[in-house]
């Protein structure tokens, strides 16, 4: 089979994970110009094999050769450099960046076009491969299908010799699939090869030149796609030996069970018109290739995803509006994502187990400790959970025991209907058997179980009946002796139903307006408008407001705040926060008061500037290192520096003293054509920084790191360095603010500047920055600072008392933050992230 035209060759690859031999001496070869399909069941080893090819997984033995060169030390970047590109099913795009920026970022640094020309470059690339995406759009606004297309575009722009597509049609409609196939043909026509991983045999038959089948980590063979039938492929895919012990099923000749759960015309986001019923004592499986709606239907029954339709428990209408409603109808859900949604990892086994059934171990509102411990101990013994004690944090248990805790919690609730999502994911063989026993036990005790599993063999061994989903609908129901791995997999793989509804969006005028509102420029526009309105109103009430003196003093005061706000924004972009800016600005003033006093000379000034720069750099480094190296949360780290800096200021100047030389003040407050020079500098700096944030390499890096640290790291960003640099940059900008502050107060006042911490955050947030990092605008921050200062200046002119200097900013920030988060579609509340993160 070997020809010199092989662009990807894996030889005798072996990979063992604890307890599992994932790949057993697999060899695999892909030729230039072919579409090579890789098929197999869930867990057959396809993903591991491709991870080995992509350098993401290091094999125990065996070699990987890409375009004729053997990878000696496999890393993702080495594989990419040799010409392999992978499009994963789970997208790895950065939400806060635009389509064009994501594409640029996927290239190795030396090949990146300048960011100024990025949009044009991206548009051209997208046109070449016939993908319709607006390069200027922010990825966070894209739908699933569009994200996937972007992933493909990201891979293709690297001009790969081998392109690996992992389940590329899962979220595509039939029309979009056709377009994708056309693109694939174009790509292979240039001599590149495509590895096409898919569950869908009809598609595979159409697109692939050759196909290889994996089963249980073993290569079953490579065939010409034209020469094998779907049935033959299926024969090779299924047929794992049953090595697991399953409890007995409900006897086939048993009298028909009373239906406990009845579902009719049940529809939701990814499933349509689903109907089935489950009787007492039965275990029913929902099967299908991942992403075909079976899991969504289960979650909708649990009340987690929204749905409509008729759900009945014991014949009575049951609300599944939310999880709480589902629970009171007797439906208990056992989440598939154990770590994120199932368990409270930091809490104890006891707290996790009793959570759903606290009423049973309490007298009134008070939890009875003895009763709780006894109950939990009973569950631990019953499920044979291995834990040092019931007070052990559940996160420290093994996967199997964690899963058993979930079962202990769910069964303690005595559900009428137990919904189990991937009940044995990441669980060792011994624990699996016990989990199967528990599930059968639950069913036998007058309940019923609905299970979603990606393991067809598990469904075969466990279920009395299996409904197979494809693209959101039940396409086949298997019962009795028909519940076999082969039938389940066959029904799922050969289904040709199509995804309903198009994910492509129409670009209407309304949509454009929405996009603008969600963009970075909108806040600046709104602030500018507010600024002008307030100026007009105030001038109308009191013409002195618009006098040169008042305006120029306002602009001067703004410049101090604006510099500090710019610094704050740098840190906020990395998803951090710097509370120490206020005291640092104050310390700058205090230090200056020692060098810039009355009668000081030029030499003193130089030395003074050097000292304050040194102080700022030291503070920035301290913050950065506390955050990155000591791993304190940014709030804590900068809180500590806040306190220390304030202490140092007080140490140096216990009381305000040390008047600054008038020359220095005059220097800082000089004007050009009536406008303070400092304000001109601030405006220029805002524009430069704004441009750099959008167009330069460091700007991109900063936003990438703030958007998603892990993904940015995978794309080659030096996260730690970027964050530390942001804190140092913040300190230096704060230093500039401190200089301006010194001109305002003219004396070494240790408490000067403290208010700037919160005001700078206010200004930056008004300017549209996200506290979660990744987005913000320097021009917005400038306008935020300007508006805040205008409010402070205008209130006396308007005859309003001092309280309005607080009311107005307070109202502004609440409305602004609320409006921005609405416009950007941020999920509210329940998932709000902790402030310190």
């Amino acid at each position, binding site marked *: 089979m070997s020809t010199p035209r092989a662009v990807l060759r894996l030889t005798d690859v072996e990979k063992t994970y604890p307890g599992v031999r994932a790949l057993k001496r697999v060899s695999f070869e892909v030729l230039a110009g072919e579409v090579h399909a890789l098929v197999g069941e869930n867990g057959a080893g396809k993903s591991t094999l491709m991870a080995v090819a992509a350098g993401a997984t290091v094999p125990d033995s065996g070699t990987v050769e890409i375009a004729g060169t053997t990878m000696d030390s496999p890393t993702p970047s080495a594989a990419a450099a040799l010409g392999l590109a992978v499009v994963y099913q789970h997208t790895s795009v950065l939400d806060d960046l635009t389509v064009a920026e994501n594409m640029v970022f996927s290239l190795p640094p030396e090949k990146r076009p300048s960011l100024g020309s990025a949009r044009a470059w991206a548009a051209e690339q997208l046109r070449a491969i016939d993908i319709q995406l607006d390069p200027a759009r922010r990825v966070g606004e894209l739908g699933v299908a569009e994200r996937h297309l972007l992933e493909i575009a990201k891979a293709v722009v690297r001009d790969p010799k081998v392109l690996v597509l992992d389940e590329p049609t899962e979220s595509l409609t039939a029309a979009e699939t056709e377009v994708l196939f056309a693109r694939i043909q174009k790509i292979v026509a240039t001599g590149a090869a495509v590895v096409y991983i898919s569950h869908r045999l009809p598609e595979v038959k159409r697109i692939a030149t050759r196909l290889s089948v994996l089963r249980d980590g073993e290569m079953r063979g490579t065939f010409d796609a034209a020469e094998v039938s779907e049935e033959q492929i299926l024969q090779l895919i299924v047929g794992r030996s049953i090595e697991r012990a399953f409890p007995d099923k409900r006897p086939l000749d048993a009298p028909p069970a009373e239906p406990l759960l009845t579902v009719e015309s049940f529809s939701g986001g990814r499933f349509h018109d689903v109907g089935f019923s489950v009787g007492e004592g039965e275990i029913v499986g929902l099967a299908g290739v991942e992403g075909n709606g079976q899991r969504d239907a289960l979650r909708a029954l649990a009340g987690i995803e929204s749905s409509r339709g008729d759900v009945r428990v014991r014949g009575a209408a049951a609300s599944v509006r939310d999880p709480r409603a589902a629970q009171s109808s007797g439906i208990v859900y056992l989440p598939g994502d154990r770590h994120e949604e199932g368990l409270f990892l930091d809490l104890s086994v006891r707290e996790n187990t009793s959570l759903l059934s606290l009423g049973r171990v309490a007298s009134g509102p*008070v939890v009875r400790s003895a009763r709780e411990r006894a109950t939990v101990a009973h569950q631990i013994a019953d499920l044979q959970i291995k834990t040092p004690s019931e007070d052990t944090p559940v996160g420290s248990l093994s996967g199997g025991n964690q899963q058993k805790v979930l079962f202990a919690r769910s069964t303690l609730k005595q559900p009428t209907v137990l919904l189990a999502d991937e009940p044995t994911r990441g669980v060792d063989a011994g624990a699996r058997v016990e989990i199967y026993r528990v599930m059968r036990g639950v069913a036998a005790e007058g309940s019923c179980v609905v299970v979603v599993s990606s393991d067809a063999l598990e469904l075969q061994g466990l279920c009395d009946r299996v409904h197979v989903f494809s693209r959101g609908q039940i396409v086949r129901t298997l019962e009795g002796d028909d519940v076999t791995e082969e039938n389940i997999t066959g029904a799922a793989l050969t289904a040709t139903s199509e995804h309903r509804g198009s994910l492509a969006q129409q670009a209407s005028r309304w949509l454009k307006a929405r996009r603008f509102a969600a963009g970075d420029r909108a806040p600046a526009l709104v602030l500018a408008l507010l600024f002008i309105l307030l100026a007009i109103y105030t001038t109308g009430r009191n013409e002195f407001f618009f006098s040169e003196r008042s305006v120029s003093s306002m602009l001067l005061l703004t410049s101090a705040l604006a510099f500090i706000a710019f610094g704050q924004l740098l840190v906020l972009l990395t998803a951090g926060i710097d509370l120490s800016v206020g005291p640092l600005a104050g310390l700058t003033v205090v230090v200056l008061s020692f060098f810039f006093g009355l009668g000081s000379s030029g030499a003193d000034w130089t030395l003074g500037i050097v000292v304050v720069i040194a102080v700022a750099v030291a503070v920035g480094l301290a913050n950065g290192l506390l955050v990155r190296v000591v791993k304190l949360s940014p709030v804590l780290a900068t809180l500590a520096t806040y306190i220390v800096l304030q202490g140092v200021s007080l140490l140096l100047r216990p009381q305000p003293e040390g008047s600054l030389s008038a020359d220095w003040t005059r220097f800082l407050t000089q004007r050009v054509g009536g406008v303070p020079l400092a304000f001109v500098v601030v405006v220029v700096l805002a524009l430069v920084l704004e441009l750099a944030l959008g167009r330069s390499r460091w700007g991109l890096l900063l936003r990438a790191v703030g958007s998603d640290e892990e993904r940015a790291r995978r794309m080659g960003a030096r996260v730690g360095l970027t964050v530390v640099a942001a804190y140092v940059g913040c300190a230096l900008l704060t230093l500039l603010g401190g200089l301006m502050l010194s001109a305002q107060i003219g004396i070494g006042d240790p408490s000067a500047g403290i208010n700037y911490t919160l005001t700078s955050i206010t200004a930056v947030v008004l300017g549209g920055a996200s506290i979660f990092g990744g987005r913000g605008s320097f021009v917005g921050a400038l306008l935020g600072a300007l508006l805040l200062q205008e409010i402070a200046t205008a209130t006396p002119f308007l005859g309003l008392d001092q309280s309005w200097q*607080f009311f107005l900013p307070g109202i502004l920030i609440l409305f602004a933050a609320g409006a921005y988060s609405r416009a950007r579609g941020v999920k509210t509340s329940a998932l709000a992230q902790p402030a310190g993160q």
Partner: protein
Amino acid sequence: MSEHAVSAGADQGPAMPTIAPLRWLRAFVRTPYFAIWPATALLFAVSPLLASGSLDGSALLGMLPFAAILALAAAGQTLIVQQGGLDLSVPGMISLAAVIVSKYPDGANGRLLPAILIAFAACAVAALISGIAITRFGITPLIATLGVNALLTGAVLQYTSGSASNPAPPALVDFASGKVAGIPNTVVIAIVLIALATFVVRRTILGRRFVAAGASPRAAVAAGIRVREHQLGTYVVAALLYAAAGVLLAGFLQTPGLQPGQQYLLPSIAAVVLGGTALTGGSGSVAATAVGALFLTQLNQVVLGMGAASSVQLLIQGAIIALGMGLRNVPWARLRRARVAN
């Protein structure tokens, strides 16, 4: 924390034959809430050596009310932190409660009770604004409470017209400086409220759900817990604790001034952190926070007693926070294992 011992004592679990209180102690030592207790004991032990007289009865009686008031404020902050938030509205809440109870009665004891009720109601309303902004409008807790703090500060200025010369009514002043069986009333109130908070958090169904909602909002939603309602409620309860701190502070200071709450923001966060409650939310200990507040207050006292300037006080506080938290972040267990492996 003590009811934990009671609960463990009541249980003769079959699996663990060790004597219950001993087992509880051993478990407690491993929690992050333990360290502040010996640290505080150590501080008190060395206090007289550093600053003579800092353990005298009069010194303690002067220090304890401040510790109690800080403990109340920090207890509220702890609850917010447990819900994954950070409350920047502590100063505004305390200040507003303090000016209301000093200005509204206008020196008349008879108007004290309505004044206290108004103070509590005002703080609760402010907390509802924060809470709704956070749970319904998706505003980050930090930003929401920053905004609400500005509103509260505005309200204080509006209500007092910017001048604060009203003394608290005599009854409140007497109460705040009074004692029960030799213990200052402020301390009694703090202990009662903190014990109550601890009991509710640790021992009731409500408390369990509150902790779960903070530990993992997603998992809590999946488990059928009304996360938003718990968060909203937490902001209100915290506000009531701040209000209590503000009322007592007004009585203790007699003329509280305009912004007596200003100096409580950073120490309230510092006390939470020293107590061992993680800023990531979930479990926490109001009692450990209270001990953290005691630690901070006594530390100030000692440093002042040594004749050091308030600047040194700040330096030491900052260093202790950075060091204390830094030490917690060292992966001790892994280091120990590595040493064993070698």
